[in-house]
């Protein structure tokens, strides 16, 4: 029995990899994302220059051999700042997705298992959260509780909760009437155990796809908050913060704005492609028409 299951999983994995390697979206997205993550990890070990060191003599240099992406108004190397800033973007978005999953998925699964009043209350509550434009509320939260990276993570994370609750609920509702769940109920398992053993493994794909999408939205949100000064605080380098500082330098040093913007675009594009690709590969029923 056990061996059969392992064999089956093995087969699934081969099926997955075969489809994944023929899906261009997935390949491109996975490659870009891997590079961004690698750069972030690599920055812990090495950056071309020290991002905390101000070298005023070298300020506002256009891209050149010594500074591939140029320098900023304090003479800091922009490539190094982009590398270190990527940690920030990834960490904020990742933790915010984690908050959404940790709170939203149990809520959604609980609503799907209970149905009735619990379900109704949860759905209406998520309607109310959705009525707050996410960015506006993030601005309000960080403004009231003080700007900073932790509050930015919380502000972005709160809006991930109803998203994951809805995805988990929708997926779970479709599974509860299925035969294998019925069999589990007939054998006397309780709802919580069924959810853990049978529902969660089967909605993992949905959550993974949604997680990728929320991850990319989180990167954009962090950049926006830092740009208006409510996210990551100096001196920690952050892509949004770099754009804010570039704004007044636009006429003399446009590269200061162009480079961090491209970093955001490449990262978000990679995650979106990865999400699209994953959706196609993991669940053909969800595939959009081409």
């Amino acid at each position: 029995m056990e061996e059969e299951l392992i064999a089956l999983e093995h087969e699934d994995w081969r099926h997955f990899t075969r489809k994944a390697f023929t899906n261009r979206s997935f390949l491109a997205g996975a490659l870009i994302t891997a590079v961004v993550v690698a750069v972030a990890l690599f920055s812990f070990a090495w950056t071309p220059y020290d991002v905390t060191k101000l070298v005023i003599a070298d300020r506002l240099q256009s891209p050149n051999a010594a500074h591939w992406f140029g320098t900023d108004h304090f003479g800091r190397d922009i490539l190094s700042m982009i590398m270190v800033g990527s940690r920030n973007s990834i960490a904020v978005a990742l933790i915010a997705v984690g908050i959404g999953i940790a709170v939203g998925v149990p809520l959604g699964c609980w609503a799907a298992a209970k149905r009735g009043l619990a379900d109704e209350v949860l759905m209406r509550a998520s309607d109310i959260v959705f009525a707050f434009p996410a960015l506006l509320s993030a601005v309000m939260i960080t403004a009231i509780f003080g700007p900073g990276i932790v509050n930015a993570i919380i502000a972005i994370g709160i809006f991930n909760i109803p998203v994951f609750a809805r995805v988990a609920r929708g997926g779970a509702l479709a599974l509860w009437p299925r035969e294998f769940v019925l069999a589990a109920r007939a054998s006397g398992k309780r709802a919580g155990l069924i959810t853990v053993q049978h529902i969660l493994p089967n909605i993992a794909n949905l959550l993974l796809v949604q997680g990728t999408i929320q991850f990319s939205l989180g990167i954009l949100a962090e950049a926006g908050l830092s740009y208006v000064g409510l996210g990551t605080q100096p001196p920690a380098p952050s892509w949004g913060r770099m754009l804010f500082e570039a704004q007044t330098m636009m006429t003399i040093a446009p590269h200061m704005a162009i480079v961090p913007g491209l970093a955001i675009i490449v990262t978000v594009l990679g995650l979106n492609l990865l999400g699209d690709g994953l959706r196609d590969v993991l669940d053909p029923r969800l595939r959009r028409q081409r």
Partner: protein
Amino acid sequence: MLSYALRRIAVVLITLLAASAIVFAVLEIVPGDPARLMLGMNAGEDAIAALREQMGLNQPLLIRYFSWLGGLLSGDFGRSYTYSVPVIDLVRERLVVSLPLALMALFLSTAIAIPVGIFSASRRGTASDAGVMAATQLGIAIPNFWFALLLVYVFAVTLRLVPAGGFPGWQAGFWPALASLLLPAIALALPQAAILSRVTRSALLDVMGEDYIRTARAKGLPANIVLWRHALRNALIPVLTILGLQFSFLLAGTIIIENVFYLPGLGRLVFQAITQRDLIVVESVVVLLVATVIIVNFLVDLAYAWADPRLRRR
């Protein structure tokens, strides 16, 4: 239709009430005494106490919530802590910037997205379809405030076609005022247009797979007539829903974009209020925007149900 509308109105009212309670509660737990803030550092304790009494800050929480809510409904948003003028006046003079900006962006994104979506769907699978889809992927990934900076650099700094920022006010004439909103509106519209054209394309492709389209084709109607008269009408329903949702993104988006262009809109007002701890202004603007979102989505739902009777039975 009427019973559907009434049911929806009840839900909308409850949502509005809950949303306003959340905003009120959030600002209630913020440290700091508004009376102390208004009077400054050197104010005496009895002056602060008197102002607290006058502002009704000593009343129980629930009473304050309902009197605040009642004020909102009658257009009395309270007085700004820093400017000592009615909040509604501040909001009104900023709204003449933000609302035209959001509407312009909405118009631009629709005007771009729907033709692009139709074009792409009608050439499904071709190189031009693939090109458009790649461009929309890129459009979604571009942060609008970065795109705004780029627009300023190209059109205001280098080419000097439009002002780089600021707002002359509508009294300076319609066209100068409109010109200063053009770049911000384009910056806001671009990512929304990218999303909307993808939605238009996939909605159209969904409809094109329906039986009645095959029937229309089979009876010999030209492909153009089938597309414009049969498919497009039905495809626009999901497009309308997304459009309603996008309105809230656009409103929130104006908050950041106004900072790029130094526009004296609601967004600038919120940021000034935040730095001055003028929380009653923050509270009012947030409630106003949330109410707008809820009401716009309600209107979209209603239009949806009016267009498609099958939806009324939910």
